[in-house]
């Protein structure tokens, strides 16, 4: 189940992003349209899946579309999207139950995952730059 939710989140993030960027959909429509289709498919019980399980998948999909709503200036590459979706899936499984019943809970998880991803990314970039500088300084010292 966990794997399916993570895969669903990644697919939802990618779908929303590409619908808004490539096909020129507005961000709200790019989030709502795929979510509606997925929710309708599970609502009509086209797949023989338990109700709780189906609800979790639809919620994960709907929440992950918010990650895909991130601005095109921030999300530049496909792996940004995949990693953000992956992070959302993990956070949804870990802390999703605490937001049950609260409107906007999925949005908070999406926001946390997007911010966490960019903080980690920036930290990695800073560490990489510092290591480069250290290498340059050590070369100068040896010369």
């Amino acid at each position, binding site marked *: 189940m966990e794997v399916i939710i993570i895969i669903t989140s990644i697919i939802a993030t990618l779908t929303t992003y590409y619908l808004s960027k490539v096909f020129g959909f507005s961000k709200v429509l790019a989030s709502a349209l795929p979510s509606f289709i997925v929710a309708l498919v599970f609502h009509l019980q086209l797949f023989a899946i338990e109700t709780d399980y189906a609800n979790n998948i639809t919620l994960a999909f709907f929440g992950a579309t918010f990650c895909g709503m991130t601005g095109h200036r921030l999300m530049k590459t496909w792996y940004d999207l995949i990693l953000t979706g992956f992070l959302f899936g993990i956070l949804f499984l870990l802390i999703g139950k605490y937001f049950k019943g609260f409107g906007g809970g999925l*949005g908070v998880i999406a926001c946390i995952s997007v911010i966490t991803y960019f903080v980690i990314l920036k930290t990695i970039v800073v560490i990489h730059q510092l290591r480069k500088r250290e290498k340059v300084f050590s070369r100068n010292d040896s010369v």
Partner: protein
Amino acid sequence: MRHLTKYLNVIFKKKDQHSYSLQEWIINISICEITALSTFYIHTMYHQNIVLVASFIGIILGLISTKERFKNIQFVGYCGVFVGMSSTLIFPTLLSVCCAGIIAGVIYNLSTSLLFGYGGRLGTIAFLSVWGVYVLNIILR
């Protein structure tokens, strides 16, 4: 209102991107209110899937606001949809949904540049308003 928005933007060290006029304030809050109430009403009264209702209203908002003039309506409306996604355990009456919708609209108007471009911004605004009204409900009980 504009001064308050600018003040908050200075606090959060953000560039002043846009500050709303009084007319825009009223429109934004009322749209947030309408979408919150409609989402809550449909999913509680007709016992429909929350995601189905929310995304359906989201599609309507997305289709309405294709023009540049109405671009802002879809975002504030979507924020209201998230408020309306709360369960009856959190909001026992429609009055609390009304209050949460108004608070969400106010926060949206004040935070023009806060977390701008980050996914989940509207959901976070909705959650803050829902949580605020929920805490107030507990205190006043």
